């Protein structure tokens, strides 16, 4: 058993290692760029069918439906690994908004916390089970080993249950109250959101500030209770 990852022994899909990881990464990156270029060509070709007068309306509907399905599946895959910018535009509902926020914390926070430990504070108070599950997936994807959930007891328990059931090795500790580290966590969250907003432009600054204000107000209330 690999002491660093007890799940490794059950991973039978890992290919035989050929060459160094760096060589594999370089090769795979090239393959991905080629596949992506082919995907763009294929997509353009299929989309052109919609303008083709020799194609029936029913077939056009099927084509459009297939394009949506294929695009969604690919988008989900990207989202699973990279999060953030895969969610584009649109009127995000609260849940989607929280998912986007949490994944930003995980994505950017994992960089800020050198990939080993990151804490979610504040926003978890509003977290839904779905967003916690998403965060848990992201943590696993990034190999983050410890999730400190400063959200509600119920939310933390559900997240713990989810991760346990999924067989992740993420260790969870959670607290009902924000502690002295909350300020640091909120600072990380603030920084993460700032980076994300400035780089992607997906979340307006006023919207971000409004949400931060709400989170800080609630954090203060928890700390004062």
């Amino acid at each position, binding site marked *: 058993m690999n002491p660093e990852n007890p799940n490794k022994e059950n991973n039978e899909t890992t290919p035989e290692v050929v060459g160094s990881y760096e060589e594999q990464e370089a090769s795979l990156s090239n393959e991905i760029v080629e596949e992506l270029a082919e*995907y763009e060509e294929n997509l353009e*070709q*299929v989309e052109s069918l919609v303008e083709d007068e020799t*194609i029936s309306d029913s077939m056009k509907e099927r084509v459009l439906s297939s394009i949506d399905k294929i695009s969604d*599946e690919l988008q989900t895959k*990207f989202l699973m690994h990279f999060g953030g910018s895969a969610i584009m535009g649109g009127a995000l509902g609260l849940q989607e908004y929280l998912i986007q926020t949490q994944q930003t914390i995980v994505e950017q926070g994992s960089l800020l916390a050198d990939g080993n430990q990151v804490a979610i504070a504040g926003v978890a108070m509003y977290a839904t089970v779905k967003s916690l599950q998403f965060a848990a997936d992201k943590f696993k994807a990034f190999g983050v080993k410890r999730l400190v959930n400063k959200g509600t007891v119920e939310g933390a328990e559900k997240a713990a249950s989810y991760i346990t059931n999924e067989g992740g090795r993420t260790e969870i500790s959670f607290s009902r109250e924000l502690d002295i580290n909350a300020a640091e966590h909120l600072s990380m969250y603030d920084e993460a959101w700032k980076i994300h907003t400035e780089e992607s432009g997906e979340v307006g600054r006023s919207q971000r500030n409004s949400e931060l204000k709400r989170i800080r107000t609630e954090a203060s209330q928890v700390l004062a209770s």
Partner: protein
Amino acid sequence: MTKEELQEKLKSAKEATSPEERVKILEDIRDALKSANQELKQVYKEAMSE
């Protein structure tokens, strides 16, 4: 997702994960793209043979 966006994401992933994990992620993305390409070709083929 444009090529530039993808490359930026790949760069982020490289900075945030272990080498082993990065290889797995890249394989997963490559396989997803391959699958999408096969499906798109099949859709085109079926539409043209109608």
